[in-house]
């Protein structure tokens, strides 16, 4: 693949569609100047430039994280990453360059050709922008702001300035610092007091092509008594030649508000997917993370909730699928900082063909947080002997009144289940697919229909050819 083609692949995910913009490409590697150039090019206010620069310096000095699969991180070559590129839609990639196995998966998933091209990086823009606009109009009538993050900063700088980095500061970890320095894309949402957004709002490629990025940054604020369900990602393999993806998501649920954030991601097998997701729940508010990770080389992702106000609730439901050469290091972090807060964590993982999935969790109850309840359930399903699954739960319990439950199980597909399903006319692969889909069902049923159907089909595909 040519360098140009590679750049184009990266480009589609930035979602820059300015037809008049010329090709601008930064050299690989990062410096203060690169960070300043990014900010200038985006015509950002001075304060954002300063945040970026501060974050850049922090990134350079900061050690690698110690939480997670830290050895693997050492192999990331930061000098070999292109941190920002922007080019016109003309530099499109050739369809012939998209690997055959990915094209096959598109076909098997029944993804329309136009979308296939978008996913494969051949076209930078997907046509259903119109759908996005009509949904946006509906939301606007309710006073809901829904923009890509760059536009959010342009149009509502005072809101962004007030909340940006308050939940995930750049000093949180090395990758949140990196993201803060070079972020591009992502979503900005503000839901006014008392407004309930009925339909899930999707940053799906089908609706908003501008959304995905290598260093995307998302900020969602649900004002008092409001609610929103935000959905991002896609089940089709997202083919990328960029090997480092490091997003930051910040959620703020004010008193009595509810935010649900659902994600399904399926990165290609070369990608390091290192994401910091954290939400704050104020009094009687709820933050829910529904998080599905398929693909990538290494995913490190631990959606977190800070239960700051009395009576707040956190819910994390996650699934991870680790195939050959993949490590899904995922989990959840819940911090009970106020009395009578509750949390529930359900984590399900499948490992196959030598893949490894880990649950890594943190549950904290501070001394003043009395009367808290938490339930953690981790289930792992191993499809063969070569695969691996492990659990690393951490608990810091500072208040004796806490009511805590923790269950963990590791299971294998039984011969009895396979024989039963095969005696009903299903091949061994189909039987495996059903068992695997069933295992993920508590997650899948939380997703909007089209995602659920696609995820099931994807897992069925994953089971093909795996049985010998």
């Amino acid at each position, binding site marked *: 693949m040519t360098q140009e083609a590679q750049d184009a692949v990266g480009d589609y995910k930035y979602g820059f569609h300015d037809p008049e913009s010329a090709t601008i490409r930064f050299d690989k590697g990062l410096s203060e100047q690169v960070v300043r150039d990014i900010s200038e090019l985006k015509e950002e206010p001075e304060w954002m430039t300063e945040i970026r620069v501060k974050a850049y310096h922090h990134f350079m000095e900061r050690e690698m994280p110690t939480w997670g699969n830290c050895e693997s991180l050492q192999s990331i070559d930061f000098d070999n990453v292109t941190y920002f590129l922007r080019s016109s839609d003309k530099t499109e990639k050739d369809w012939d360059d998209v690997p055959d196995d990915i094209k096959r998966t598109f076909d098997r998933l029944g993804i329309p050709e136009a979308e296939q091209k978008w996913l494969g990086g051949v076209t930078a823009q997907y046509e259903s922008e119109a759908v996005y606009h009509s949904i946006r109009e509906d939301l606007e009538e309710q006073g809901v702001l829904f923009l890509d993050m760059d536009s959010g900063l342009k149009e509502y700088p005072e809101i962004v300035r007030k909340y940006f980095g308050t939940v995930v500061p750049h000093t949180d970890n090395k990758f949140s610092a990196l993201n803060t320095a070079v972020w591009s894309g992502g979503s900005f949402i503000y839901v006014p007091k008392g407004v309930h957004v009925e339909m899930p709002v999707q940053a799906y490629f089908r609706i908003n092509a501008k959304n995905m990025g290598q260093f995307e940054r998302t900020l969602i604020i649900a004002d008092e008594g409001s609610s929103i369900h935000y959905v991002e990602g896609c089940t089709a393999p997202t083919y990328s030649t960029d090997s480092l993806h490091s997003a930051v998501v910040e959620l703020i649920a004010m008193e009595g508000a509810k935010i649900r954030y659902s994600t399904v991601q399926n990165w290609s097998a070369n990608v390091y997917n290192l994401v910091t997701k954290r939400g704050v729940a104020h009094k009687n508010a709820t933050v829910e993370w529904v998080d599905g990770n398929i693909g990538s080389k290494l995913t490190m992702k631990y959606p977190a909730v800070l239960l700051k106000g009395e009576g707040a609730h956190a819910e994390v439901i996650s699934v991870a699928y680790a195939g050959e050469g993949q490590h899904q290091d995922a989990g959840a972090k819940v911090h009970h900082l106020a009395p009578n807060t509750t949390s529930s964590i359900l984590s399900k993982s499948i490992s196959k063909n030598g893949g490894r999935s880990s649950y890594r969790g943190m549950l904290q109850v501070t001394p003043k947080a009395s009367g808290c309840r938490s339930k953690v359930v981790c289930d792992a399903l191993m499809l063969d002997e070569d695969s691996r699954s492990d659990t690393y739960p951490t608990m810091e319990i500072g208040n004796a009144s806490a009511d805590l439950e923790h269950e963990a199980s590791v299971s294998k597909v039984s011969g009895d289940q396979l*024989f*039963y399903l095969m*005696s009903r*006319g299903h091949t061994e692969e189909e039987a495996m697919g*059903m068992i695997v889909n069933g295992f993920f*069902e508590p997650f899948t049923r939380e997703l909007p229909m089209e995602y659920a159907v696609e995820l099931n089909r994807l897992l069925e595909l994953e089971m093909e050819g795996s049985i010998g």
Partner: protein
Amino acid sequence: MTEVLLRVENLHVYVGETQIIHGITLEIKRGEIHAIMGRNGAGKSTLANVIMGHPAYEITDGTIHYKGEDINEMEVFERARAGMFLSFQYPAAIPGVQVGTFLRKSVASVRGEAPSPREFRKELNEAMKQLDMDKSFLSRYVNDGFSGGEKKRLEILQMLMLQPDMALLDETDSGLDIDALRIVAEGINAVAEHTGCLIITHYQRLLDLVKPDVVHVLIDGKIVESGGPELAVKLEQEGYDWVDALA
């Protein structure tokens, strides 16, 4: 002449080093009901599992013919698609898979094409009504947390939906209450006319409702006695001691 559906000849079966079936011969025609009775551990389930193609068992001698063909090389799912059905003594639970979805997929696999949603729903409604099953079954997970009787009802529901040519029913009557037994027996009778049935049971009470043409007594992996329905009555009254002499 009525079609011979299943022909088991001189079957010898091992699991690991242990021999379980010691030379069984059996022939079942379409429309016939055969019952197999015998003590716990005699090898009844093993016979049914082997006929269905369970991979844990090794056939060291003898053959199984289905519809005139040696099925030794056929995979389990191919046997199902060819019209064989096994109602399990211990049906496996498949957590997370809803009964409705499972039935639809199974019907599609066995028939080779997905039924139209409307047609399927109609058939399913009728079958469930016949078995006095509540609609709420459809959204439950397959055999997950089912009572013994509920599992058996689901097995028979599958039989009605899959319309097999050859049905192997392994203790389908155990765990059923009296009403359920009658209902399940009606379900079996509904298909028996044009199906071959091999019914494994411990009790006469099912055979009062589903009239067998032949009753076989299985002892230590061998059929030691075959006869008419009166054989089952005798076993019920006298137990198995008298057949030991025949073994």
